[in-house]
């Protein structure tokens, strides 16, 4: 009886592991195939894309990096850094203002900003294009940064608000007694305590901004300003039939977010799940 139960459990355990490993293969096998081919020559890839390379062409990665990928990276870093900084700044200020003061119309403002989460980028695309042209911002970095900030504020504000509400009032009351004004309380008490939620917001927003394509594709023309997702598409056009270098480029471009996730998966998961439940 007991033996039977143990055997049954053991079989279940093995089957479950096999099933989960099979799925790991489905995810990783195409990626491995791409990595393998990125290390071949074009002829080799066309001859047999499953074979191992005769000579490992690590030079493909250097070529891809040299053919403009470096500039796309630089642009992505600049655009993301500025966007994330202002997303966090404006959202935390909003959350602070809405949780710490009884503003007339505060609830309305809260729901107005929250409603922004329901609005999709496609719907704003045509008017934004016209507005950015009228503001003479079309084809500048600001043409990406401003919409990125605006579209990410609702989600970020909501996440921060929930956190700020949970911060005990006593901390601030002590600071008021010590004569701190609201700005000092914000920068010296609230923000330092909120580091975990700031990290979660930063990383989830980074994933969004770093990979954003729709706006980048429409609001930029200048190759020198293109971010990675857009740059990759241009890369495809530039390289024509140099497939292996293109593959190397795709893989280089995908690496940063994956590495960041592996280092910060805790913050990532917290930010994503909080946002999804509430958003």
């Amino acid at each position, binding site marked *: 009886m007991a033996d039977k139960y143990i055997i049954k459990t053991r079989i279940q355990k093995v089957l*479950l592991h096999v099933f*989960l490993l099979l*799925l*790991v293969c489905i*995810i990783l096998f*195409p*990626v491995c195939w*791409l990595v393998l*081919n990125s290390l071949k020559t074009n002829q080799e890839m*066309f001859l047999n*894309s*499953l074979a191992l390379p005769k000579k490992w062409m690590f030079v493909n990665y250097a070529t891809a990096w040299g053919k403009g990928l470096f500039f796309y990276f630089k642009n992505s870093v600049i655009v993301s850094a500025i966007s994330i900084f202002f997303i966090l700044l*404006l*959202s935390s*200020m909003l959350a602070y*203002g809405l949780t*710490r003061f009884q*503003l007339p119309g505060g609830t309305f*403002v809260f729901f107005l*900003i929250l409603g*922004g989460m*329901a*609005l*999709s980028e*496609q*719907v*704003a*695309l*045509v*008017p*934004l294009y*016209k*507005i950015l042209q009228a503001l003479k911002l079309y084809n500048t970095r600001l043409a990406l940064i*401003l919409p990125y900030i*605006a*579209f990410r*504020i*609702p989600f970020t504000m909501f996440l921060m608000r929930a956190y700020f509400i949970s911060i005990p009032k006593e901390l601030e009351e002590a600071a008021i007694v010590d004569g701190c*004004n*609201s*700005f000092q309380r914000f920068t010296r008490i609230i923000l330092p305590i909120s580091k975990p939620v700031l990290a979660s917001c930063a990383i989830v927003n980074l994933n969004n901004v*770093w*990979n954003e*394509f*729709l706006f980048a*594709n429409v609001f930029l023309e200048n190759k020198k300003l293109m971010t990675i*997702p857009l740059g*990759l*598409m241009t890369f*495809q056009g530039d390289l024509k039939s140099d497939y292996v270098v293109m593959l190397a480029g*795709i893989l280089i*471009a*995908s690496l940063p977010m994956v590495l960041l*996730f*592996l280092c910060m998966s805790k913050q990532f*998961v917290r930010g*994503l799940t909080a946002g*999804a*439940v509430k*958003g």
Partner: protein
Amino acid sequence: MKKKKNLAPYAYVIPGLLMVLGFVYIPIIVNLVYSFFRLSSYSASMKFVGLDNFRRLFTNETFPIMIRNNVYYCVISLICQVGFGTFLAFMLESNLIGDRFKTVCRNIYFIPALVSLTAVGMMFNFIYNPQMGLLNTMLKHFGFVSLQQTWLGDRNLAIFCIIAMSQWQFTGYITLLMVVAFQNVSRDYIEAAVIDGAGPVRRAWNIVLPLAKEQLLVCSIITVIGAFKLFTEVYSTTVGGPGNSSQVLGLFLYQNAFLHDDMGMAAATGVLIFIITVTASIFQLKVSHSGEV
């Protein structure tokens, strides 16, 4: 306590509020206005045409194809990402699996969601490539030459190839969200069920799932919204082709606005996407508030 009229609180709220109003709300309102006009991207002239843009949209020969493709994407994603993704989350939460193995699997399933849509699209252009792509090479290798396809080049298959790519990319995302939801279910309920003699399937179905119902609904709605915002996946692979066989609403909007210079029609398509996604979002907000104590 505070008697003095203080303007400082407004200073915290106004910058963020202005950004959201200026770059989210105003464009969306303007889009609604544009949908009643004929306008071009090169000039400022606008001509009022009433509902003509909507008439042209609904009677366009690709309209049924787009709706069909968006609905296919939506339904298959619900079954695969939400349905199978949730099932997978249950499997990962089984106590037959070690914590270490569980975390590694969960993270690997999630990794594709971190890669940009264009990069994934370009990767799958290689995988689906008829000459040297992974799929056809594998089929040849195992002797199924007759099963080889042109994949993205096939009218009937193209949209399903794109849908399959998205399932590969995003199922792990839903799984991750559901795993966390399951972990938040109080151990007490599960232990009580164990004492009552409920097996793992009964426990999952009758205890854990109802308690994580809210998250499940949220995941479904995210998926529905995503399905009707679909753009980059198609743009980076088939660009709507062959013919218009894999055309979707998001790409149609883009092409009308920036290729055919028919911004009025694009705006009308935007209004349609707006109605669908906002309806789903309102539903989502209702759901996520209902569970709050």
